[in-house]
């Protein structure tokens, strides 16, 4: 015990105790518990029976899993693409707009939906997109067209989800881009003006190249979240659309919490995590986003 120097560090031990306890009980233990559960099938009399990798095999042979994987890739692909591109353009527009108050106002307003939960965003848009008295369909009817069942039509639900994601997240990503832009040295622009560069040249030759490193950051942040999509799908899915938009995390939830097939559910979540870690690690390497060093 001499090595731990309890007397000298007594207070520090107390201060770090909640953190260690939390990580051990709610992070490490669930991982171990999960690995064990994923290799077991429940016995009739309680407890579990070791079945090796059977649960993993069951997941890989489950058509719903592949359906969920496909949906996840399609949805997250669309969400990442829009999440990287639209805010990029918005940030440049913010940077270029000549009135500071208008810029500030726009920034504040488009950022706001990011703070809302998906339940709130869902609640608002279920109303706005309602086929009977929703705002959007009232406008469509003004033009004499048939109302669209955005949230119930299998052809519309995916684009709708992707666009809602954009509605909620554009401001957030735009602020990340904009932060990178506003940290740039204004002298570069002044020098370009002196050299007779036009506004368009300044955007394409200065702003865009200077923003490109941030595209990597935004892409990483969106890609990390991609496999974790849950709330929006869980909230907006219904009997008609569930097969079109069910994602990996709702698949895990349904298996575990609805069907109580805990082994298969945890096996699925570990498969997803492994794929996720592999993808993120690969992207990190590829884009050289450096890890933290605490030194």
């Amino acid at each position, binding site marked *: 015990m001499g090595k731990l120097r309890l007397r000298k560090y007594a207070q520090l031990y107390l201060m770090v105790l909640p953190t260690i306890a939390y990580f051990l009980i709610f992070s490490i233990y669930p991982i171990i518990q999960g690995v064990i559960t994923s290799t077991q099938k429940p016995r009739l009399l309680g407890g579990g029976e070791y079945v090796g990798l059977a649960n993993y095999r069951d997941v890989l042979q489950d058509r719903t899993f592949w359906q969920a994987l496909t949906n996840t890739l399609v949805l997250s692909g669309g969400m990442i693409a829009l999440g990287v591109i639209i805010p990029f353009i918005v940030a440049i*527009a913010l940077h270029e*707009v000549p009135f500071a108050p208008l810029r500030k106002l726009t920034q504040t307003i488009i950022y706001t939906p990011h703070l809302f939960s998906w339940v709130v965003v869902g609640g608002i848009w279920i109303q706005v997109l309602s086929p009977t008295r929703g705002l959007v369909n009232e406008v469509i009817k003004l033009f004499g067209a048939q109302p669209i069942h955005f949230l119930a039509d299998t052809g519309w639900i995916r684009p709708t989800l992707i666009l809602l994601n954009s509605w909620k997240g554009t401001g957030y990503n735009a602020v990340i881009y904009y*932060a990178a832009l506003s940290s740039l040295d204004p002298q570069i622009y002044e020098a370009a003006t002196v050299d007779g560069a036009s506004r368009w040249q300044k955007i394409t030759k200065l702003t865009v190249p200077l923003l490109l490193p941030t595209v990597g950051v935004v892409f990483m942040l969106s890609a990390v979240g991609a496999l974790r999509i*849950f709330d929006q799908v869980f909230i907006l899915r*219904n009997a008609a659309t569930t097969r079109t938009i069910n994602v990996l995390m709702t698949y895990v939830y349904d298996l575990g919490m609805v069907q109580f097939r805990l082994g298969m559910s945890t096996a699925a979540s570990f498969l997803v995590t492994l794929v996720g870690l592999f993808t993120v690690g690969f992207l990190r390497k590829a884009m050289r986003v450096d890890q933290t060093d605490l030194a």
Partner: protein
Amino acid sequence: MRTRLTIADWILSLIMVCLILVTVVPLLNALALSFSSNLAAVEPGIHLWPKEFSIVGYQTAWRKLQFWRPFMNSVYVTAVGSFLHMAASSMAAYALLQRDFPLRKPVIWLMLLSMTVPGEAIMVPLYIVNRELGLLNTYTSLIIAGMVSGFTILLLFNYFRSVPLSLMEAARLDGAGDFTIFTRVFLPVSKPGLAAVGLFQVVGRWNQFREPLLYITNKAKSTIQIALREVSMLSDATSGTDVVLANTRMAAVVIGVSVLVLVFPFVQKHFIQGIVLGATKE
């Protein structure tokens, strides 16, 4: 200063106005409906301003649907959870600052591991842990969820690092213990960092959805987001028959963001620093 506005400037301004409208119109629609009377709420047409101004939607949501209960539950869970999160994480950040503290390495190791495995991945195991600990249907389960985060520890660690070591040494020579140095020297210096963490926590915990969905089945203990989801689902988008009228549903939405409105003015200010730290340090 003399500036000449070009066509490009007008187009840019127009883009800004469009961005604002796309964001605001759905919100305005919800707000207008929430303040409409029962009759006006079911009328077809474009609602951007309350027709027949009325608070009957709020009364129905608050009393008849008993939104006061999940609202109070969420206020409690958010307040206690945010406070404990800040306390635990800042103490850990302080401990990590002490280079010769024997548990420094193990804590960093635990922290990085927890940051690698996303919470979603251990959703079901976490449910089992809570069940084993008898925490299902308790506020404690919601408060403990995310009580410490590596992200927060790193953010505060970076603030703490700006404190000159000589200050710490001086305090120590004066006979101050670690906890005193922490509360008297480090916490005051990192007020902006703590404020940022506190705001993120309040927003995150008020919006907490998956945890109550998993851990809480007792309706008396459910939280605002769960209650709001149930009410939103009662409007069936496919059939068009509204079980709960639009004014009540939108009033529920407004109640669902009400607490966030209180923190809005401060969030933007602290947001950029959080993002910059988060993006580079994650």
